[in-house]
């Protein structure tokens, strides 16, 4: 501490770092985004507690739903898990997407955001960087749920290829869906309000779907909602991949929904980002 506290700026040493050497050319869009992804990794290194929501939370969800509903809905937990595991994976990962908005909001509050915005680089890079870091978190959560599932007796007929394809589709969709939260992160005033809005959107979206039960048992008006809910289609697509009965119609639906998310919410995010 003594050396840093008794620091006296010396004209020669500070002057030396100010020499106007030629500035390097600006980084490519991809390189800038990757650098922000690296920042997300560093934050995980320094604040490992933030991985709770991609480890402990998914384990809890899997155990809770398998044993809570298993006996009643499918005769036994081990039978139910064949049906419910892809759904739990989808709902857990989609829930976790809301932390993107919280992170964006925190950076704005702490002022580090202004620094990034004043740099001459590809404008969406910080946003893409957040989402690259988040894609890592989504993959981790999916893996944790898969491992817990396997231990509990989940035996996917789709095999390794089907499971990996299912997780890839899920992570890809979540990446696109997260632009909703980057928008709210920029739009709303505090971390708490971002959390509040996220819950309001995510709870109905994940529960009013085919994650836990077959929609044919629901009243007609509810079925109407469940059938247009993108989460339903995502669950069907992931289930089909892991179940070895690839449903290309559902997969196409999910990919189109993802593209629409990026087109709408990506555009809105960048508008807000530039005007903030």
């Amino acid at each position, binding site marked *: *501490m003594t*050396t*840093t*506290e008794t*620091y*006296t*700026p*010396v*004209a020669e*040493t*500070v*002057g*030396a*770092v*100010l*020499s*106007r050497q030629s*500035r*390097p*050319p*600006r*980084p490519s869009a991809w*390189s*800038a985004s990757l*650098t*922000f992804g*690296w*920042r997300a990794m*560093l*934050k995980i290194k*320094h*604040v490992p507690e933030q991985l709770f929501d991609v480890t402990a939370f998914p384990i809890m969800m899997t155990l809770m739903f398998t044993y809570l509903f298993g006996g009643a809905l499918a005769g036994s937990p081990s039978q139910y898990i064949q049906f419910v595991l892809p759904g739990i994976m989808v709902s857990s990962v989609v829930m976790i997407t809301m932390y993107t908005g919280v992170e964006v909001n925190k*950076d704005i509050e*702490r*002022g*580090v*955001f*202004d*620094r*990034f*915005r*004043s*740099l*001459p*680089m590809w404008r969406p*890079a910080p946003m893409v960087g957040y989402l690259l870091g988040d894609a890592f978190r989504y993959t981790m959560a999916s893996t944790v749920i898969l491992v817990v599932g396997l231990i509990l007796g989940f035996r996917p007929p789709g095999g390794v290829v089907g499971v990996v394809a299912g997780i890839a589709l899920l992570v890809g969709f979540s990446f696109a869906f997260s632009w909703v939260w980057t928008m709210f992160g920029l739009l709303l005033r505090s971390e708490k309000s971002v959390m509040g809005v996220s819950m309001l959107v995510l709870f109905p979206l994940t529960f009013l779907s085919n994650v836990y039960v077959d929609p044919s048992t629901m009243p007609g008006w509810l079925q109407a909602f469940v059938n247009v809910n993108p989460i339903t289609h995502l669950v069907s697509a992931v289930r089909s991949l892991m179940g070895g009965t690839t449903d290309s119609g559902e997969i196409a639906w999910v990919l189109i929904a993802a593209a629409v998310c990026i087109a709408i919410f990506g555009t809105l995010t960048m508008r807000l980002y530039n*005007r*903030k």
Partner: protein
Amino acid sequence: MSDLAIETSGLVKVFGDNRAVDGLDLAVPAGAVYGVLGPNGAGKTTAVRMLATLLRPDGGQARVFGHDVVREADAVRGRVSLTGQYASVDEDLTGMENLVLLGRLLGHRKAAAADRARELLEAFGLTDAADRQVKNYSGGMRRRIDIAASILNTPDLLFLDEPTTGLDPRSRNQVWDIVRIVVAHGTTVLLTTQYLEEADRLASRIAVIDHGKVIAEGTPGQLKSSIGAGSVHVRLRDPHRRPEAERLLAEALGAPVYIDADPVALTARIIGNGRDEAAAEQASRALMELSRAGIVVDDFSLGQPSLDEVFLALTDKPAA
């Protein structure tokens, strides 16, 4: 193109009912420190954020090195750098990681970014703290890492938004020294501050702003002579004699006298009376008048003109 670093005309920014910046006209010459002096809420930060392309103006024009801040924002970003009121580096990361991150974002390759980061940490006396998270830095260290981050690619124009607010005197002096070195190497600095002393010590020109407008502009010398040399603060023994003391001081100094909330206290401005007389000399003559009238003075002090007095002089109301 012009040799002005910053040129604004009629710049406006409105937040709801609040006209934060309300027709700001600035002409900042390149190569020196330009001070923007004003109280909290005067619109200093809003103005800086517009000039640094972070906020879109609602009216008027602003050019930085001849580039329009809205239409040519990218060209402006390539030449300026900003150090905000709050250290804008990532608190969760270490000092080293922060500088490498910025180096990479500015286009340095991995090895070059690390070299550059080490050089900067060394120059700013932060080598020992390189691997500590910034949230564990002291206030002075944070400000230094923030300035280091701002000069990673030496900018042509550096915005320092209240760089010493909340710092202890030693850290404040360190920041002042750094600013002087940076300017000596050819970077123009726009410094916003609430402290007249800071603007006086660093800036070659000062704009005083209030309610989003420039209310006075000039060299520190011009400003000070327009507002007077300082003030004398007097505490009397007997509160009943204050009206008399007020009259005597006003006569002796030829300037307005202000009644303090404290019933025995008075503050009088000392303005240049054209006779080239030192402030201390004028003050002592005024105090002599009090003692001649038999008014006992318990305590007195002679003050440099404060921001408050700048505002009293320019707007005839205290700084908000």
